[in-house]
């Protein structure tokens, strides 16, 4: 298999499986040889997942985490996309708001925890708020740059065909910026998934983040800690794959070619 040749079909499956198997083996024997009292072996983690499934908390927790991401991220999309499009469309407005965005953007959503709790108390709301914050800024920034990167030729064609400013935005600028916007939405969803886990360690008593903390606090069940971590990883991957599928739509695929 050289760098240029396309790997054969069996190789596409074999090598990743092989690497995963190797990692699991290294993990397994690493745990045995080091005689670590804390870190669970893969088998213990598997048992932990089965135990969680039997106690029926796993599905409920996954549902809670996904719901918080769904609401927080959903609001960020509904508010962030129109705002980003508008700011990209009116550079004068962007100039006014940009300093505020640039200052708020690099603040980790976790730093908002105290304020989130003061504002929203305990429960879903502060977690949803943190998820919203984490997704909001990447979405706005992606939309602004998507719109301002639209080739002037496209806008001129739109004007030439007699489009009103509103039609120009919906029929030319938005579809032209969509490939870049979708990348922003995907990155934002990844961040939202990172943040919901952190948020659930603080203000709520359900969800995968809570499961991680709770498993440690109640009886140092590191098998369950790692089991929860694995679930977080798998779901994060599934979300990312789902978003990537959007990027293969025919009407946006042109935007990802060099």
């Amino acid at each position: 298999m050289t760098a240029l040749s396309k790997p054969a079909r069996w190789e596409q499956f074999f090598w990743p499986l092989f690497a995963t198997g190797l990692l699991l083996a290294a993990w397994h024997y690493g745990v045995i040889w080091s005689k670590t009292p804390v870190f669970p072996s893969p088998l213990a983690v598997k048992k932990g997942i089965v135990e969680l499934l039997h106690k029926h908390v796993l599905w409920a927790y996954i549902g809670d985490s996904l719901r918080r991401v769904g609401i927080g991220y959903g609001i960020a999309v509904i508010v962030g996309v129109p705002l980003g499009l508008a700011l990209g469309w009116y550079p004068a407005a962007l100039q006014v708001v940009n300093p505020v965005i640039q200052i708020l953007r690099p603040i980790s959503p976790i730093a908002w925890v105290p304020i989130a709790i003061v504002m929203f108390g305990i429960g879903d709301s502060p977690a949803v708020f943190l998820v919203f914050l984490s997704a909001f800024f990447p979405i706005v920034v992606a939309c602004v740059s998507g719109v301002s990167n639209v080739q002037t030729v496209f806008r001129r064609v739109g004007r030439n065909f007699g489009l009103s400013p509103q039609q120009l935005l919906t029929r030319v600028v938005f579809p032209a910026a969509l490939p870049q916007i979708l990348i922003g939405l995907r990155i934002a969803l990844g961040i939202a998934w990172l943040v919901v886990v952190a948020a659930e360690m603080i203000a709520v008593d359900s969800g995968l983040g809570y499961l991680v903390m709770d498993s440690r606090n109640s009886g140092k069940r590191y098998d369950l800690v790692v089991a929860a971590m694995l679930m977080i990883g798998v779901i994060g991957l599934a979300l990312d794959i789902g978003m990537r599928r959007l990027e293969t739509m025919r009407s946006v695929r042109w935007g990802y070619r060099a």
Partner: protein
Amino acid sequence: MGELGLSTKAVAPLPVRSGVKLHLEHVGVVFEGDGKRVPVLEDINLDISEGEFVCLVGPSGCGKSTLLNVMGGFLPPTSGTTTIDGKAVHGPDPRRILVFQEHGVFPWLTVAENIGFGLSGLPRAEREQRIAHYVQLVRLQGFEQSYPSDLSGGMKQRLQVARALAVNPDILYLDEPFGALDSITRLIMRGELLRIWQSEKRTIVFVTHDVDEAVQLADRVVVLSSRPAKIQDILTVDIPHPRNISAPRYLELRDDLLKKIGLAYTA
């Protein structure tokens, strides 16, 4: 050319006088920036008749495209006036479509959707009919549902021309439309454009820096000087189509044009 006029499908009203379509009077453009005033066009006076094919040639960077943008209403001139059918031009208008050198088609729309872009006001059946007609005219049958990324450079330019013609413009402005194509495709596209022009009879203003292209296509060739551009000369090409590009009269006109442009082009 006047008696051939517009095709019967044209929605645009016929001009009162079948003579002058586009009239430029003392048009001048000055670009201002960094406190400097750069004159680009100076005192351009030109009449283009209904149905005429006019090429604008001149050294690169002389302001050919600027002049086209003024005609198209994209750029208000610093001085002078542009009138079409006796009415002043104040901005772009679907009755006059500009075709760009590159990236003019919308990559997020299929071939059919691109051609239908300017037809959203029409009833569905009529829109479909027009799309089918122009797909056929530019020979893109079988590609209706393809996206521009699947088309060659020449096909994309044909698509752009089809999208422009679909809204029944009375003038087509083409800004070096074949400039990004390889030389063989360019030759083919000239033939295609002539065929389309003869079947659809529109007024065409065509910017090029290719002397052969100009002599092969145009009724008249307008030669612009280097910046600030003035009309240096106007050459009438009195050879009927299809033109034999090795005929003595063709070569004579071509040499004539080269001379008018100056030594820079013969080097």
